[in-house]
Protein backbone atom coordinates (compact mmCIF):
# COMPACT_ATOMS: atom_id res chain seq x y z
CA UNK A 1 0.00 0.00 0.00
CA UNK A 2 1.79 3.11 -1.19
CA UNK A 3 1.31 6.73 -0.32
CA UNK A 4 2.94 9.82 -1.78
CA UNK A 5 4.52 12.19 0.74
CA UNK A 6 3.96 15.85 -0.18
CA UNK A 7 7.12 17.30 1.36
CA UNK A 8 9.55 14.41 0.98
CA UNK A 9 8.21 14.03 -2.60
CA UNK A 10 8.59 10.30 -2.53
CA UNK A 11 6.24 7.34 -2.49
CA UNK A 12 6.43 5.05 0.53
CA UNK A 13 4.69 2.00 1.95
CA UNK A 14 2.07 2.84 4.60
CA UNK A 15 2.41 -0.46 6.46
CA UNK A 16 6.18 -0.13 6.81
CA UNK A 17 5.75 3.33 8.32
CA UNK A 18 3.01 2.17 10.72
CA UNK A 19 5.17 -0.73 11.89
CA UNK A 20 8.18 1.53 12.26
CA UNK A 21 6.14 3.96 14.34
CA UNK A 22 4.70 1.19 16.50
CA UNK A 23 8.08 -0.35 17.28
CA UNK A 24 9.63 2.97 18.21
CA UNK A 25 6.53 4.01 20.16
CA UNK A 26 6.66 0.80 22.21
CA UNK A 27 10.26 1.49 23.22
CA UNK A 28 9.39 5.10 23.86
CA UNK A 29 6.59 4.29 26.30
CA UNK A 30 8.69 1.64 27.99
CA UNK A 31 11.87 3.63 28.57
CA UNK A 32 10.68 7.23 28.55
CA UNK A 33 12.85 8.09 25.59
CA UNK A 34 11.21 10.06 22.78
CA UNK A 35 12.61 7.66 20.20
CA UNK A 36 14.10 10.43 18.06
CA UNK A 37 17.47 8.71 18.11
CA UNK A 38 15.80 5.62 16.62
CA UNK A 39 13.26 7.08 14.22
CA UNK A 40 15.63 9.45 12.45
CA UNK A 41 18.20 6.79 11.43
CA UNK A 42 15.33 4.45 10.45
CA UNK A 43 13.80 7.06 8.15
CA UNK A 44 17.13 7.86 6.55
CA UNK A 45 17.62 4.13 6.00
CA UNK A 46 14.21 4.15 4.27
CA UNK A 47 15.46 6.76 1.75
CA UNK A 48 13.80 9.79 3.32
CA UNK A 49 16.12 12.78 2.86
CA UNK A 50 18.04 13.37 6.16
CA UNK A 51 16.84 16.94 6.68
CA UNK A 52 13.22 15.79 6.43
CA UNK A 53 13.90 12.74 8.60
CA UNK A 54 15.28 14.89 11.44
CA UNK A 55 12.44 17.41 11.39
CA UNK A 56 9.64 14.88 10.90
CA UNK A 57 11.12 12.62 13.57
CA UNK A 58 10.85 15.50 16.02
CA UNK A 59 7.21 16.01 15.09
CA UNK A 60 6.41 12.33 15.59
CA UNK A 61 8.16 12.30 18.96
CA UNK A 62 5.71 14.93 20.28
CA UNK A 63 2.80 12.54 19.78
CA UNK A 64 4.35 9.48 21.37
CA UNK A 65 5.82 11.38 24.31
CA UNK A 66 2.56 13.26 24.89
CA UNK A 67 0.66 9.99 24.88
CA UNK A 68 3.22 8.36 27.16
CA UNK A 69 3.31 11.36 29.52
CA UNK A 70 -0.50 11.24 29.88
CA UNK A 71 -0.38 7.66 31.03
CA UNK A 72 2.38 8.47 33.54
CA UNK A 73 0.38 11.45 34.75
CA UNK A 74 -2.50 9.13 35.55
CA UNK A 75 -0.23 6.85 37.56
CA UNK A 76 1.32 9.79 39.39
CA UNK A 77 4.77 9.05 38.07
CA UNK A 78 5.32 12.50 36.58
CA UNK A 79 7.13 15.17 38.58
CA UNK A 80 5.87 18.49 37.18
CA UNK A 81 8.11 20.60 39.35
CA UNK A 82 11.26 18.71 38.36
CA UNK A 83 10.19 18.70 34.70
CA UNK A 84 9.61 22.45 34.68
CA UNK A 85 12.99 23.24 36.21
CA UNK A 86 14.65 20.96 33.65
CA UNK A 87 12.70 22.65 30.88
CA UNK A 88 13.82 26.11 31.94
CA UNK A 89 17.42 24.97 31.62
CA UNK A 90 16.58 23.23 28.35
CA UNK A 91 15.38 26.41 26.65
CA UNK A 92 18.65 28.17 27.49
CA UNK A 93 20.62 25.17 26.25
CA UNK A 94 18.81 24.77 22.95
CA UNK A 95 19.08 28.45 22.10
CA UNK A 96 22.83 28.14 22.54
CA UNK A 97 22.79 24.83 20.62
CA UNK A 98 21.09 26.36 17.59
CA UNK A 99 23.80 29.00 17.47
CA UNK A 100 26.54 26.33 17.54
CA UNK A 101 24.62 24.32 14.92
CA UNK A 102 24.71 27.10 12.36
CA UNK A 103 28.36 27.79 13.17
CA UNK A 104 29.26 24.15 12.49
CA UNK A 105 27.25 24.14 9.29
CA UNK A 106 29.05 27.22 8.02
CA UNK A 107 32.45 25.55 8.45
CA UNK A 108 31.15 22.26 6.94
CA UNK A 109 31.35 18.70 8.34
CA UNK A 110 28.21 19.07 10.45
CA UNK A 111 27.11 15.52 9.54
CA UNK A 112 30.39 14.06 10.67
CA UNK A 113 30.30 15.99 13.93
CA UNK A 114 26.77 14.76 14.61
CA UNK A 115 27.72 11.14 13.93
CA UNK A 116 30.79 11.35 16.17
CA UNK A 117 28.75 12.98 18.92
CA UNK A 118 26.12 10.25 18.64
CA UNK A 119 28.67 7.44 18.81
CA UNK A 120 30.58 8.97 21.72
CA UNK A 121 27.49 9.86 23.76
CA UNK A 122 25.45 6.75 23.08
CA UNK A 123 28.49 4.54 23.58
CA UNK A 124 29.40 6.11 26.93
CA UNK A 125 25.88 6.36 28.29
CA UNK A 126 24.96 2.86 27.12
CA UNK A 127 28.17 1.30 28.43
CA UNK A 128 27.90 2.88 31.88
CA UNK A 129 24.23 1.98 32.23
CA UNK A 130 24.78 -1.59 31.17
CA UNK A 131 27.63 -1.99 33.65
CA UNK A 132 25.62 -0.55 36.52
CA UNK A 133 22.36 -2.36 35.77
CA UNK A 134 24.00 -5.76 35.30
CA UNK A 135 25.67 -5.30 38.67
CA UNK A 136 22.31 -4.35 40.19
CA UNK A 137 20.61 -7.39 38.70
CA UNK A 138 23.41 -9.63 40.01
CA UNK A 139 23.20 -8.27 43.54
CA UNK A 140 19.40 -8.51 43.48
CA UNK A 141 19.74 -12.18 42.50
CA UNK A 142 22.19 -12.87 45.31
CA UNK A 143 19.71 -11.42 47.79
CA UNK A 144 21.36 -8.08 48.52
CA UNK A 145 19.09 -5.04 48.34
CA UNK A 146 19.77 -2.75 45.37
CA UNK A 147 22.24 -0.06 46.34
CA UNK A 148 21.00 2.65 44.03
CA UNK A 149 18.63 4.40 46.39
CA UNK A 150 20.26 3.82 49.70
CA UNK A 151 19.15 6.66 51.94
CA UNK A 152 21.84 8.62 53.68
CA UNK A 153 24.32 7.90 50.90
CA UNK A 154 24.95 11.23 49.21
CA UNK A 155 27.37 12.31 46.51
CA UNK A 156 28.85 15.77 45.97
CA UNK A 157 25.76 16.86 44.06
CA UNK A 158 23.67 16.64 47.18
CA UNK A 159 25.94 19.05 49.04
CA UNK A 160 25.32 21.98 46.67
CA UNK A 161 23.34 25.01 47.92
CA UNK A 162 19.89 26.30 46.77
CA UNK A 163 18.07 23.15 47.71
CA UNK A 164 14.56 22.49 46.50
CA UNK A 165 12.07 19.79 47.39
CA UNK A 166 10.62 17.64 44.60
CA UNK A 167 7.82 15.76 46.30
CA UNK A 168 6.85 13.34 43.52
CA UNK A 169 10.47 12.28 43.13
CA UNK A 170 11.03 12.06 46.92
CA UNK A 171 13.98 14.33 46.35
CA UNK A 172 15.59 17.26 48.15
CA UNK A 173 18.44 18.59 46.02
CA UNK A 174 20.05 21.78 44.83
CA UNK A 175 18.51 23.29 41.66
CA UNK A 176 22.00 23.90 40.21
CA UNK A 177 22.54 20.34 38.88
CA UNK A 178 18.89 20.12 37.74
CA UNK A 179 19.20 23.26 35.63
CA UNK A 180 22.64 22.11 34.49
CA UNK A 181 21.22 18.84 33.17
CA UNK A 182 18.43 20.78 31.45
CA UNK A 183 20.93 23.08 29.72
CA UNK A 184 23.07 20.15 28.58
CA UNK A 185 20.06 18.23 27.23
CA UNK A 186 18.70 21.30 25.43
CA UNK A 187 22.09 21.94 23.85
CA UNK A 188 22.53 18.36 22.67
CA UNK A 189 18.98 17.99 21.41
CA UNK A 190 19.15 21.03 19.17
CA UNK A 191 22.47 19.88 17.72
CA UNK A 192 21.52 16.23 17.28
CA UNK A 193 17.86 16.78 16.48
CA UNK A 194 16.57 14.48 19.20
CA UNK A 195 14.48 14.95 22.33
CA UNK A 196 17.37 13.90 24.53
CA UNK A 197 15.54 11.25 26.56
CA UNK A 198 18.35 8.72 26.22
CA UNK A 199 20.67 11.14 28.04
CA UNK A 200 18.05 12.59 30.36
CA UNK A 201 16.96 9.23 31.76
CA UNK A 202 20.40 8.06 32.91
CA UNK A 203 21.34 11.57 34.09
CA UNK A 204 18.28 11.76 36.37
CA UNK A 205 18.80 8.23 37.64
CA UNK A 206 22.52 8.35 38.33
CA UNK A 207 23.26 11.98 39.06
CA UNK A 208 20.11 13.03 40.91
CA UNK A 209 19.00 9.61 42.15
CA UNK A 210 15.43 10.10 40.99
CA UNK A 211 13.41 6.85 41.23
CA UNK A 212 13.39 5.09 37.84
CA UNK A 213 9.60 5.06 37.46
CA UNK A 214 9.32 8.83 38.02
CA UNK A 215 12.22 9.49 35.66
CA UNK A 216 10.37 8.03 32.68
CA UNK A 217 7.27 10.21 33.05
CA UNK A 218 9.24 13.37 33.83
CA UNK A 219 11.57 12.82 30.91
CA UNK A 220 8.61 12.37 28.54
CA UNK A 221 7.06 15.59 29.88
CA UNK A 222 10.22 17.54 29.10
CA UNK A 223 10.64 15.89 25.66
CA UNK A 224 7.20 17.10 24.54
CA UNK A 225 8.42 20.66 24.79
CA UNK A 226 11.92 20.25 23.36
CA UNK A 227 10.64 18.37 20.31
CA UNK A 228 7.79 20.85 19.81
CA UNK A 229 10.40 23.61 19.80
CA UNK A 230 12.54 21.67 17.27
CA UNK A 231 9.53 21.00 15.03
CA UNK A 232 8.54 24.63 15.05
CA UNK A 233 12.03 25.88 14.22
CA UNK A 234 12.45 23.37 11.37
CA UNK A 235 9.00 24.09 9.95
CA UNK A 236 9.52 27.84 9.94
CA UNK A 237 13.12 27.97 8.72
CA UNK A 238 13.68 24.86 6.57
CA UNK A 239 10.18 23.67 5.59
CA UNK A 240 11.30 20.10 6.20
CA UNK A 241 8.44 18.78 8.36
CA UNK A 242 6.39 16.26 6.36
CA UNK A 243 3.10 16.15 8.22
CA UNK A 244 1.76 13.14 6.29
CA UNK A 245 4.85 11.11 7.10
CA UNK A 246 4.76 12.28 10.71
CA UNK A 247 1.07 11.40 11.05
CA UNK A 248 1.60 7.83 9.82
CA UNK A 249 4.46 7.37 12.26
CA UNK A 250 2.33 8.88 15.06
CA UNK A 251 -0.55 6.47 14.59
CA UNK A 252 1.80 3.53 15.00
CA UNK A 253 3.69 5.38 17.71
CA UNK A 254 0.84 6.25 20.07
CA UNK A 255 -0.50 2.70 19.95
CA UNK A 256 2.95 1.31 20.64
CA UNK A 257 3.59 3.80 23.45
CA UNK A 258 0.57 2.64 25.46
CA UNK A 259 1.60 -1.01 25.27
CA UNK A 260 5.18 0.00 25.97
CA UNK A 261 4.26 1.93 29.11
CA UNK A 262 2.44 -1.13 30.48
CA UNK A 263 5.27 -3.48 29.55
CA UNK A 264 7.65 -1.11 31.33
CA UNK A 265 5.61 -1.33 34.54
CA UNK A 266 6.04 -5.09 34.69
CA UNK A 267 9.81 -4.86 34.57
CA UNK A 268 11.92 -3.92 37.55
CA UNK A 269 13.99 -0.73 37.46
CA UNK A 270 17.35 -2.40 36.89
CA UNK A 271 15.98 -4.66 34.16
CA UNK A 272 14.50 -1.65 32.42
CA UNK A 273 17.84 0.12 32.63
CA UNK A 274 19.74 -2.87 31.30
CA UNK A 275 17.42 -3.14 28.29
CA UNK A 276 17.67 0.58 27.55
CA UNK A 277 21.46 0.32 27.84
CA UNK A 278 21.51 -2.50 25.27
CA UNK A 279 19.31 -0.52 22.90
CA UNK A 280 21.46 2.60 23.20
CA UNK A 281 24.63 0.55 22.65
CA UNK A 282 23.14 -1.13 19.59
CA UNK A 283 22.42 2.23 17.95
CA UNK A 284 25.92 3.46 18.85
CA UNK A 285 27.53 0.39 17.28
CA UNK A 286 25.40 0.72 14.16
CA UNK A 287 26.45 4.36 13.73
CA UNK A 288 30.11 3.55 14.43
CA UNK A 289 30.03 0.84 11.76
CA UNK A 290 28.74 3.43 9.29
CA UNK A 291 31.60 5.74 10.12
CA UNK A 292 34.31 3.14 9.62
CA UNK A 293 32.86 0.78 7.02
CA UNK A 294 33.62 1.36 3.37
CA UNK A 295 30.50 3.00 1.92
CA UNK A 296 28.70 1.39 -1.04
CA UNK A 297 29.26 4.51 -3.00
CA UNK A 298 31.81 7.12 -2.00
CA UNK A 299 29.89 9.76 -3.93
CA UNK A 300 26.74 11.43 -2.71
CA UNK A 301 24.43 14.01 -4.25
CA UNK A 302 22.78 16.96 -2.60
CA UNK A 303 20.48 19.47 -4.19
CA UNK A 304 21.06 23.14 -3.66
CA UNK A 305 18.44 25.80 -3.42
CA UNK A 306 15.66 23.50 -2.31
CA UNK A 307 13.69 24.17 0.83
Amino acid sequence: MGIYLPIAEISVNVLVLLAMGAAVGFLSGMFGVGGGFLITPLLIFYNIPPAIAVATGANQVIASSFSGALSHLKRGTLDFKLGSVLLAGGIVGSTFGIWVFSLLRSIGQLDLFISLLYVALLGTVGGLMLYESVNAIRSARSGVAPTLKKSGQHNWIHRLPLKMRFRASKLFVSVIPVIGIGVAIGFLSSIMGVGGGFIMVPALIYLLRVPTNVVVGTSLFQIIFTSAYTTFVHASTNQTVDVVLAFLLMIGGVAGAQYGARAGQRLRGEQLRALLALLVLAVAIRLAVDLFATPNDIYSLASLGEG
Partner: protein
Amino acid sequence: MRALAANFLLVLALGVATPAIAQTPHQESVQIGLSPDRITITAGFSGADLTIFGSLEDADPQVVRQGRYDVVVVLEGPARPVVVRRKERVLGIWINLESETFENVPISYSVASTRPLQDITQPESYKRLSLGTNNIYMQPAEPGQNPHTIAEFTRALRERKAATGLYSENPGGVQFLSPSLFRATVRLAPDVPVGTHKARAFLFKNGQFLNESSAQLEIRKSGFEQTVFRLARDHGPFYGFLSIMLAMVTGWMGRIVFRKD
Protein backbone atom coordinates in the same frame (compact mmCIF):
# COMPACT_ATOMS: atom_id res chain seq x y z
CA MET B 1 29.41 34.26 -17.54
CA ARG B 2 25.83 33.23 -18.10
CA ALA B 3 25.58 35.29 -21.31
CA LEU B 4 28.75 33.65 -22.59
CA ALA B 5 27.40 30.18 -21.96
CA ALA B 6 24.15 31.04 -23.72
CA ASN B 7 26.01 32.29 -26.78
CA PHE B 8 28.02 29.13 -26.89
CA LEU B 9 24.88 27.01 -26.80
CA LEU B 10 23.29 29.05 -29.55
CA VAL B 11 26.28 28.55 -31.84
CA LEU B 12 26.20 24.86 -31.05
CA ALA B 13 22.54 24.61 -31.95
CA LEU B 14 23.05 26.43 -35.27
CA GLY B 15 26.02 24.27 -36.11
CA VAL B 16 23.89 21.19 -35.70
CA ALA B 17 20.82 22.42 -37.52
CA THR B 18 22.37 23.89 -40.65
CA PRO B 19 24.01 20.81 -42.22
CA ALA B 20 21.02 18.66 -41.35
CA ILE B 21 18.67 20.84 -43.37
CA ALA B 22 21.13 21.33 -46.19
CA GLN B 23 21.73 17.63 -46.72
CA THR B 24 18.15 16.44 -46.92
CA PRO B 25 16.07 16.89 -50.02
CA HIS B 26 13.04 15.58 -48.14
CA GLN B 27 11.60 17.74 -45.38
CA GLU B 28 10.61 14.99 -43.00
CA SER B 29 9.70 16.22 -39.57
CA VAL B 30 8.68 14.77 -36.24
CA GLN B 31 5.81 16.01 -34.10
CA ILE B 32 4.76 15.05 -30.62
CA GLY B 33 1.73 16.02 -28.70
CA LEU B 34 0.89 15.56 -25.07
CA SER B 35 -2.69 15.08 -24.07
CA PRO B 36 -3.27 15.85 -21.29
CA ASP B 37 -0.32 18.19 -20.86
CA ARG B 38 -0.66 17.99 -17.13
CA ILE B 39 -0.10 14.99 -14.87
CA THR B 40 -1.28 14.94 -11.29
CA ILE B 41 0.56 12.95 -8.65
CA THR B 42 -1.92 11.52 -6.17
CA ALA B 43 -1.42 9.81 -2.82
CA GLY B 44 -1.01 6.41 -4.44
CA PHE B 45 1.70 7.41 -6.92
CA SER B 46 4.64 5.01 -7.03
CA GLY B 47 6.19 5.69 -10.39
CA ALA B 48 4.49 5.23 -13.74
CA ASP B 49 5.01 4.78 -17.45
CA LEU B 50 4.12 7.82 -19.46
CA THR B 51 3.01 7.32 -23.06
CA ILE B 52 3.73 10.03 -25.58
CA PHE B 53 2.29 9.84 -29.11
CA GLY B 54 3.99 11.38 -32.08
CA SER B 55 3.91 11.43 -35.83
CA LEU B 56 6.37 11.41 -38.66
CA GLU B 57 5.43 13.85 -41.39
CA ASP B 58 6.37 13.77 -45.06
CA ALA B 59 8.22 10.50 -44.54
CA ASP B 60 9.81 8.73 -47.48
CA PRO B 61 7.84 5.45 -47.88
CA GLN B 62 10.95 3.66 -49.09
CA VAL B 63 12.92 4.59 -45.96
CA VAL B 64 9.95 3.70 -43.77
CA ARG B 65 9.72 0.24 -45.33
CA GLN B 66 13.38 -0.38 -44.67
CA GLY B 67 12.92 0.77 -41.08
CA ARG B 68 15.66 3.35 -41.33
CA TYR B 69 13.87 6.12 -39.44
CA ASP B 70 14.71 6.23 -35.78
CA VAL B 71 13.07 8.28 -33.08
CA VAL B 72 14.46 9.11 -29.67
CA VAL B 73 12.10 10.65 -27.11
CA VAL B 74 13.37 12.35 -23.97
CA LEU B 75 11.44 13.59 -20.96
CA GLU B 76 13.59 15.99 -19.02
CA GLY B 77 12.70 17.30 -15.57
CA PRO B 78 13.37 20.80 -14.20
CA ALA B 79 17.01 21.65 -13.62
CA ARG B 80 18.61 22.43 -10.26
CA PRO B 81 22.15 22.98 -9.01
CA VAL B 82 23.59 19.79 -7.51
CA VAL B 83 26.58 19.18 -5.23
CA VAL B 84 28.48 15.91 -5.66
CA ARG B 85 30.59 14.97 -2.66
CA ARG B 86 33.28 12.34 -2.44
CA LYS B 87 34.12 10.51 0.77
CA GLU B 88 37.67 9.68 1.70
CA ARG B 89 39.14 7.74 4.55
CA VAL B 90 40.79 9.83 7.25
CA LEU B 91 42.05 7.98 10.34
CA GLY B 92 39.72 5.10 9.47
CA ILE B 93 36.64 7.31 9.25
CA TRP B 94 34.92 8.12 5.98
CA ILE B 95 34.61 11.87 5.61
CA ASN B 96 33.18 14.02 2.81
CA LEU B 97 36.23 15.81 1.51
CA GLU B 98 36.09 16.92 -2.09
CA SER B 99 32.98 18.29 -3.68
CA GLU B 100 31.95 19.68 -7.03
CA THR B 101 28.91 21.83 -7.76
CA PHE B 102 27.11 21.62 -11.08
CA GLU B 103 24.66 24.19 -12.38
CA ASN B 104 21.35 23.27 -14.01
CA VAL B 105 21.38 19.51 -13.69
CA PRO B 106 18.04 18.03 -14.77
CA ILE B 107 16.54 16.27 -11.75
CA SER B 108 15.12 13.54 -13.96
CA TYR B 109 15.87 12.38 -17.49
CA SER B 110 14.08 9.49 -19.19
CA VAL B 111 14.92 8.32 -22.67
CA ALA B 112 12.96 6.04 -24.96
CA SER B 113 14.23 5.05 -28.39
CA THR B 114 13.31 2.80 -31.31
CA ARG B 115 16.55 0.82 -30.91
CA PRO B 116 19.47 0.82 -28.47
CA LEU B 117 21.07 4.26 -28.72
CA GLN B 118 24.43 2.97 -29.95
CA ASP B 119 22.72 1.36 -32.98
CA ILE B 120 21.05 4.56 -34.15
CA THR B 121 23.92 6.94 -34.74
CA GLN B 122 27.50 7.81 -33.83
CA PRO B 123 28.49 8.78 -30.26
CA GLU B 124 29.64 12.15 -31.62
CA SER B 125 26.13 13.00 -32.80
CA TYR B 126 24.73 12.29 -29.35
CA LYS B 127 27.42 14.46 -27.81
CA ARG B 128 26.54 17.33 -30.15
CA LEU B 129 22.87 16.98 -29.31
CA SER B 130 23.52 16.41 -25.57
CA LEU B 131 21.27 13.42 -26.02
CA GLY B 132 21.23 10.35 -23.77
CA THR B 133 21.90 9.95 -20.06
CA ASN B 134 25.65 9.87 -20.73
CA ASN B 135 25.66 13.06 -22.75
CA ILE B 136 23.64 15.50 -20.67
CA TYR B 137 25.72 18.60 -20.42
CA MET B 138 26.64 19.25 -16.80
CA GLN B 139 28.11 22.67 -16.26
CA PRO B 140 30.52 22.97 -13.31
CA ALA B 141 29.82 25.99 -11.11
CA GLU B 142 33.50 26.87 -11.01
CA PRO B 143 35.02 26.30 -14.44
CA GLY B 144 38.76 26.12 -14.87
CA GLN B 145 39.35 23.26 -12.49
CA ASN B 146 41.22 20.06 -13.18
CA PRO B 147 39.31 18.45 -16.10
CA HIS B 148 39.99 14.98 -14.66
CA THR B 149 38.27 15.88 -11.41
CA ILE B 150 35.31 17.37 -13.25
CA ALA B 151 35.01 14.29 -15.48
CA GLU B 152 35.15 12.01 -12.44
CA PHE B 153 32.44 13.91 -10.57
CA THR B 154 30.28 14.17 -13.69
CA ARG B 155 30.43 10.40 -14.11
CA ALA B 156 29.60 9.88 -10.44
CA LEU B 157 26.63 12.23 -10.74
CA ARG B 158 25.23 10.24 -13.69
CA GLU B 159 25.78 6.93 -11.94
CA ARG B 160 24.00 8.08 -8.78
CA LYS B 161 21.07 9.42 -10.81
CA ALA B 162 20.81 6.18 -12.79
CA ALA B 163 20.97 4.12 -9.59
CA THR B 164 17.97 5.95 -8.14
CA GLY B 165 15.99 5.55 -11.38
CA LEU B 166 15.80 9.27 -12.04
CA TYR B 167 17.91 8.85 -15.16
CA SER B 168 16.69 5.97 -17.27
CA GLU B 169 16.91 4.66 -20.79
CA ASN B 170 14.29 2.50 -22.43
CA PRO B 171 15.60 1.04 -25.72
CA GLY B 172 12.69 -0.22 -27.78
CA GLY B 173 10.39 2.14 -25.88
CA VAL B 174 9.45 3.90 -29.10
CA GLN B 175 7.27 1.81 -31.42
CA PHE B 176 5.85 2.66 -34.81
CA LEU B 177 2.12 1.91 -34.85
CA SER B 178 1.77 2.84 -38.52
CA PRO B 179 4.23 4.28 -41.05
CA SER B 180 3.67 7.71 -39.62
CA LEU B 181 2.46 7.21 -36.06
CA PHE B 182 4.64 6.22 -33.14
CA ARG B 183 4.23 5.70 -29.44
CA ALA B 184 6.96 6.36 -26.86
CA THR B 185 6.95 4.97 -23.33
CA VAL B 186 9.13 6.81 -20.82
CA ARG B 187 9.50 5.87 -17.17
CA LEU B 188 8.59 8.23 -14.34
CA ALA B 189 10.50 7.41 -11.14
CA PRO B 190 8.52 7.31 -7.85
CA ASP B 191 10.30 10.48 -6.77
CA VAL B 192 9.89 12.25 -10.10
CA PRO B 193 10.14 15.98 -9.38
CA VAL B 194 7.11 18.22 -9.72
CA GLY B 195 7.34 21.14 -12.09
CA THR B 196 7.58 21.74 -15.81
CA HIS B 197 9.07 18.85 -17.75
CA LYS B 198 10.16 19.08 -21.34
CA ALA B 199 9.42 16.27 -23.77
CA ARG B 200 11.54 16.23 -26.90
CA ALA B 201 11.54 13.92 -29.90
CA PHE B 202 14.61 13.55 -32.11
CA LEU B 203 14.28 12.16 -35.62
CA PHE B 204 17.12 10.26 -37.29
CA LYS B 205 17.27 8.90 -40.82
CA ASN B 206 20.07 6.49 -41.73
CA GLY B 207 21.89 7.60 -38.62
CA GLN B 208 21.59 11.28 -39.58
CA PHE B 209 19.88 13.71 -37.25
CA LEU B 210 17.06 15.48 -39.07
CA ASN B 211 15.12 17.56 -36.60
CA GLU B 212 13.36 17.63 -33.26
CA SER B 213 10.17 18.86 -31.74
CA SER B 214 9.25 19.51 -28.15
CA ALA B 215 6.28 19.82 -25.87
CA GLN B 216 5.85 20.74 -22.25
CA LEU B 217 4.44 18.57 -19.55
CA GLU B 218 3.37 19.86 -16.18
CA ILE B 219 3.73 17.39 -13.30
CA ARG B 220 2.05 18.53 -10.13
CA LYS B 221 0.70 17.26 -6.87
CA SER B 222 -3.00 16.57 -6.49
CA GLY B 223 -5.27 18.73 -4.35
CA PHE B 224 -4.40 17.61 -0.83
CA GLU B 225 -0.68 17.11 -1.43
CA GLN B 226 -0.48 20.46 -3.17
CA THR B 227 -2.26 22.21 -0.29
CA VAL B 228 0.10 20.72 2.29
CA PHE B 229 3.12 21.58 0.16
CA ARG B 230 1.99 25.20 -0.29
CA LEU B 231 1.15 25.63 3.35
CA ALA B 232 4.56 24.31 4.42
CA ARG B 233 6.37 26.52 1.96
CA ASP B 234 4.44 29.75 2.33
CA HIS B 235 3.31 29.67 5.96
CA GLY B 236 6.10 27.80 7.76
CA PRO B 237 5.43 28.91 11.36
CA PHE B 238 1.70 28.30 11.06
CA TYR B 239 2.34 24.91 9.47
CA GLY B 240 4.76 24.06 12.28
CA PHE B 241 2.15 25.05 14.85
CA LEU B 242 -0.45 22.87 13.10
CA SER B 243 1.96 19.93 13.03
CA ILE B 244 2.54 20.26 16.77
CA MET B 245 -1.20 20.46 17.46
CA LEU B 246 -1.83 17.41 15.25
CA ALA B 247 0.83 15.49 17.17
CA MET B 248 -0.70 16.41 20.53
CA VAL B 249 -4.22 15.50 19.44
CA THR B 250 -3.01 12.22 17.97
CA GLY B 251 -1.14 11.45 21.17
CA TRP B 252 -4.23 12.20 23.24
CA MET B 253 -6.55 10.19 20.95
CA GLY B 254 -4.09 7.31 20.99
CA ARG B 255 -4.19 7.40 24.76
CA ILE B 256 -8.01 7.11 24.73
CA VAL B 257 -8.19 4.42 22.05
CA PHE B 258 -5.30 2.23 23.14
CA ARG B 259 -5.20 2.85 26.88
CA LYS B 260 -3.80 -0.09 28.74
CA ASP B 261 -4.07 0.90 32.39
